[in-house]
C-alpha cells in the first residue's frame, strides 16, 4: 500500500504553501521531511493525512485515488510536537482509545495495548495518568497510541522538539527500531539534519514548499543535487564562497582565498562557481593532504559540550567551523583555518551541483 503524491500543490489565499510535489512512499518505509520552519512540512503532512485538500494534484493509496476523502475515512495516525493525550485517562486507556473506537474485542485490545507499551517501555506506568509522567514518557504514550491503531500511515510532526536534549537523544536512538517493527509508512518532519541522519530511511528536503531532493538519507546528505538542498541539510549552516576558476587556479570573490584547481575543482571549465563545504571540513588545525590555509577573525564560539562551533568572519563571508572538544577562542582575534579542496562541493551559477567530494550523481 504505497502512498503516492502526484503533482500536489496547495495555495491558501493566493500564497503557495506547497508547489508541485510528487513523492512515492513505500510500505514499511521511514520518510523524513527535512526543512526549516515554514518550509511546508506541516502543510504537506496535512495533505497526506487528508486534513486539507490539495489545490491541484492527486493523492493515491495503493493505486486508489483518495484525494477528496476526509481524514476520518483514511487509516492515518498523527503525533504532534505538543504531547497530546487524554489527561484524565490512564496510560493504558490512552493507548487503548483508538482500539475502543474501532470496537476491538477485549482480549485483542489488551494484547495490543501491552505490546505497544512494551515496545515503548511504558509497561511499568500503565496505570498512571499522563500528567504524572515526564515529557518523554508523555510523548511515548502519544506514540504508542499512534502505533497501536495499526494505521497504514503514521505522521509525526517534530515529535521530539519539545523534549530536553538528553531525552531527545534517547528517543532518537530508539525510534528507528520502533518504526521497523511496525510496517506502516512513517513520515517524520524535522528541522534538524542530525535527526534525519539518525532515523535513516529516505529524506525529502523541503524549501519554500518545494521538495528539492528525495532519496536515501545518507545519499541526500553526501550528494545533494543543488545548493538549496545542501544548505537545508547542514546544521550549522553550510559555508559558501563564490570563486572564479581560471586555468589551474581558483580565486575567492568575497574572501581572500587562492586554491589550486584540484580535488573537486579539477577538470571543470573556467568560470564563476560557488563552492560549499561543511563546517566540520573547515579545520582549525592543518588536516594534512593539500589543505589551503587562510586567516579569519573569530566572531563567537559556541560550545555544545563535546564540540565547539566557531563562527568566523573571512572577508565578507561568515563561516562556521566545528572542532571536537572545547576550544575557547578569543573574540575578534585572528585565527588560522584550513580548507581541503578534496572536501568541496562545487555549484554552478544556477546552484546545481557540478562536482563534489565523491562521484556526484549527474544532474538530471
Amino acid at each position, binding site marked *: 500500500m504505497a502512498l503516492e503524491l502526484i503533482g500536489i500543490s496547495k495555495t491558501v489565499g493566493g500564497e503557495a504553501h506547497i508547489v508541485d510535489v510528487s513523492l512515492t512512499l513505500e510500505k514499511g518505509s521511514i520518510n523524513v521531511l527535512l526543512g526549516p520552519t515554514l518550509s511546508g512540512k506541516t502543510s504537506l503532512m496535512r495533505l497526506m493525512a487528508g486534513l486539507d485538500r490539495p489545490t491541484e494534484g492527486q493523492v493515491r493509496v495503493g493505486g486508489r485515488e483518495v484525494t477528496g476523502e476526509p481524514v476520518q475515512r483514511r487509516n492515518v495516525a498523527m503525533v504532534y510536537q505538543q504531547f497530546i493525550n487524554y489527561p484524565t485517562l490512564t496510560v493504558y486507556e490512552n493507548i487503548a482509545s483508538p482500539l475502543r473506537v474501532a470496537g476491538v474485542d477485549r482480549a485483542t485490545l489488551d494484547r495490543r495495548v501491552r505490546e505497544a507499551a512494551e515496545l515503548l517501555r511504558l509497561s511499568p506506568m500503565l496505570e498512571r495518568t499522563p500528567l504524572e509522567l515526564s515529557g518523554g514518557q508523555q510523548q511515548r504514550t502519544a506514540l504508542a497510541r499512534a502505533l497501536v491503531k495499526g494505521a497504514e500511515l503514521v505522521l509525526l510532526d517534530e515529535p521530539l522538539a519539545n523534549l530536553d*536534549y538528553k531525552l531527545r537523544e534517547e528517543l532518537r536512538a530508539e525510534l528507528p527500531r520502533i518504526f521497523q517493527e511496525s510496517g506502516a509508512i512513517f513520515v517524520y518532519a524535522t528541522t534538524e539534519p542530525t535527526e534525519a541522519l*539518525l532515523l535513516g530511511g529516505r529524506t525529502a528536503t523541503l524549501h519554500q514548499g518545494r521538495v528539492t531532493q528525495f532519496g536515501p538519507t545518507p545519499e541526500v*546528505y553526501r550528494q545533494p543535487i543543488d545548493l538549496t538542498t545542501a544548505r537545508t541539510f547542514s546544521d550549522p549552516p553550510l559555508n559558501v564562497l563564490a570563486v572564479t576558476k581560471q586555468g589551474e587556479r581558483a580565486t575567492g570573490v568575497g574572501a581572500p582565498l587562492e586554491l589550486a584547481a584540484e580535488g573537486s575543482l579539477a577538470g571543470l571549465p573556467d568560470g564563476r562557481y560557488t563552492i560549499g563545504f561543511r563546517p566540520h571540513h573547515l579545520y582549525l588545525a592543518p588536516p594534512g593532504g593539500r589543505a589551503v590555509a587562510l586567516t579569519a577573525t573569530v566572531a*563567537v564560539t*559556541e*560550545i555544545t559540550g*563535546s564540540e565547539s562551533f566557531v563562527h568566523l568572519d573571512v572577508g565578507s563571508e561568515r563561516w562556521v567551523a566545528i572542532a571536537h*572538544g*572545547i576550544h575557547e577562542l578569543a573574540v575578534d582575534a585572528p585565527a588560522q583555518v584550513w580548507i581541503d579542496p578534496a572536501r568541496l562541493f562545487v555549484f554552478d551559477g544556477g546552484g546545481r551541483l557540478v562536482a563534489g567530494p565523491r562521484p556526484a550523481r549527474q544532474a538530471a
Partner: protein
Amino acid sequence: MARITLEGLAHSYLPAPRGPEDFALKQLDHVWEDGGAYALLGPSGCGKTTLLNIISGLIRPTRGEIRFDGQDVTDLPPEQRNIAQVFQFPVIYDTMTVYENLAFPLCNRRMAPRAVDARVREIAEMLDLGSELRRKARNLTADAKQKISLGRGLVRADVAAILFDEPLTVIDPHLKWLLRSQLKHLHRRFDFTMIYVTHDQTEALTFADKVVVMYEGEVVQVGTPDELFERPAHTFVGYFIGSPGMNILPAEISGDRARIEGHELPLGAAYGRLPAGARVEIGIRPEFLSLARAGEAAGAAVPATIRAVEDVGRYRIARTRIGEHEVAVVAPEDGEIPSDGACVVFDPQRINVYADGHRVQEGG
C-alpha cells in the same frame, strides 16, 4: 556589581522538613565572584530555579544566609537587593513604548530626565534597539522583547547582579546563537555579575566562564567548560555534558590498573586505596575511544561486539557492547569500522575513576 556569598544555604518547600529528601536545595556554600559570568545547569527539578529565586529574594531560604559584598541580605525583598532578572517569557509593559519600558526602572528611582534619556539611548544602541525606541513594545518579536527585559536590567548602573531564568526558551532556534553571542559581548562590556539558569548545555557552556552543574538539589561540579568535559566530577556531569554522554563501566582498581569484564587496562595515573564498599566505576568519553581490529590494536584494547553504527554526518557513533555494558564510540566520518572481531581502544590518560558517582583524585 557585587560579590555574592552563599553560606550554609538549604531550602525546603515543606513547612517542617525532616530528612534530606524533603529539601529541594541541599546544603550549599558558594561564592559568585564580582563580574563573573556563571551558568547554573541541570535537568528540570534539580533545584536551579529555587536557587535563583533565593538569590533574587523571591524565596527566603529555610537555612543559611546570602551576602552581597559582605552585607547580609537574606531577609531583604527583591526590590531592595538591587538585582535585575530576565524571565523565561518576555516580561514587557504592553502599553508602553520601547523607550518607556527601558526608562521605567530609572523613572521609578526618580533619576533626572536628562540622565534617563542619555542612559536609555546608550543601552538601546547597544542592544540594537535604537531604531525601535518609539514603537509599542508589545508589537515586537519575542527576541526583541527579551532584549527589552534585559535592557531594563542593564540601564541600572548600580545593579548587583543580573539573573537569567532560561531566557531563550521562546526564541527561534536560528536567533538563539545570535542572542547568546550578544549576551557574551554585553558581559565583557559591563562587567556585571551574571547568573544564567538553563537546562541546555550549549547555552550554559557558551555563555559562562564557570558552569555550576546541579543534580537532585546538590551542586555536583563547578568548573570551566573544559573541566566539565575533561574531568567530570560526577558521573552525572559526564552523562549530562556532551552528546553522546560519557561511558560508565563498573571496574576494579588497583594502583594504575583497572579491570573491566576480566580485561586489564592501564590508567593514566596510580590511585590509592578507594573507599571500602563503594561502587567503583571508570568513565571515558566516546571521543576518547576508537575501534580497531582485534590483533591490530595496540595498548589498552578490549574486545567488543558492534551492535549498530549511527551516521551523524560529521562523525559516526558505534554502539558497542563490552560484556553486559553498552559503550558508545565516536568514529570519524570516513574510515573503516571493523564488522566483527573488533576491539575498543582506550586512551589511558582520559580515563576517570569514580567511587559512588564521585570522581576520585589521582594519587590520593
